[in-house]
């Protein structure tokens, strides 16, 4: 595996177009799913999906092959989302303080359906899917990274840029929330 990641790192450094095509194919589903968990919009997840790969191309030389590629990929995606959220917050504040902007901006995100809800069909919105929908994003993110992506705890800490203790506590709470939500959904 170490040889694979080293070869991957060298390919990214060279900006090998075939390698990038292959990586996009290989990680398309996983990256999109992760972005959908983080954002509250399918369209936004699509935008971030494309931006993430542009970043991978531009900053491929920064990947040293010491960790799994997906951990690095998710970190890039996460940072893009965080930057966007910061900008959005700043714009919101501008709109609130600038009388030229008219009525203060509404915090639509609070009323928006969650990402899971957006992508599911009406039929799927009942039962277990609806249960998953009730779990806070921060928990759902670590649950996805641990149990769907099967990343190690340290790799998750790397993606989140958070201490290991934070990752563990979110995982324990997330697991509890998941179990409770499932019970609630099944009831």
């Amino acid at each position, binding site marked *: 595996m170490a040889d694979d990641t080293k070869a991957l790192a060298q390919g990214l450094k060279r900006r090998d*177009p075939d390698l990038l095509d292959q990586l996009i*194919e290989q990680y398309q*589903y996983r990256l999109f799913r992760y972005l959908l968990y983080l954002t509250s919009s399918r369209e936004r997840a699509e935008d971030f999906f*494309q931006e993430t790969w542009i970043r991978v191309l*531009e900053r491929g030389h920064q990947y040293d092959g010491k960790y799994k590629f997906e951990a690095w990929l998710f970190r890039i995606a996460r940072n*893009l989302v965080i930057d966007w959220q910061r900008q959005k917050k700043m714009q919101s504040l501008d709109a609130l303080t600038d009388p030229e902007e008219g009525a203060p901006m509404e915090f639509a995100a609070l009323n928006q359906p969650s990402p899971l809800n957006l992508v599911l069909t009406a039929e799927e919105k009942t039962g277990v*899917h609806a249960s998953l929908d009730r779990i806070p994003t921060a928990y759902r993110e670590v649950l996805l990274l641990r149990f769907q992506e099967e990343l190690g705890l340290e790799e998750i800490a790397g993606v989140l840029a958070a201490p290991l203790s934070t990752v563990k506590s979110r995982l324990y709470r997330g*697991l509890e929330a998941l179990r409770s939500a499932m019970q609630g959904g099944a009831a």
Partner: protein
Amino acid sequence: MNENLHARAEKLIAQERVEGISQAERDWLAGHLHECPACSQVAQQTNDALRTLRGLAIPLPRGLTARTQFRVQLRAQELREREPKRRLLWIMCVMSWGLGIATAPYVWRAFEWAGERIGLPRLVWEMGFGLWWTIPALIAGAVVLMENLRLAHENDLHE
């Protein structure tokens, strides 16, 4: 059964899935689950919940991968086209500094001669000589700075 045992069992059920447990703890848990239907149900519910999470399918938007591959290839092409210009700039800088070092004594004498001929104070023509040295570095720095600003602007547009 002691409440502490149930609490320990629940803790180990979660811990086993999050960070793993020792063989001794696994044996103890297996024994407890065998005897305790309530904790056994918790373990089963946890397994079911994780199975559901793992099996959750989210449809990928049609054409997203192809669109992304196209955009990435375009950007790669842009970057490749820019690469020779950047290399040329650095080559020119290196050549300029190399020539500067090689010709420094002659340029110094030329400045000295011109300064005396025009009647400039020594400090002025010495500063002129210093400027002669720093101009290539300043130009290269300005070009790199402008290039980085342009890149940052492009990134903002992408976002």
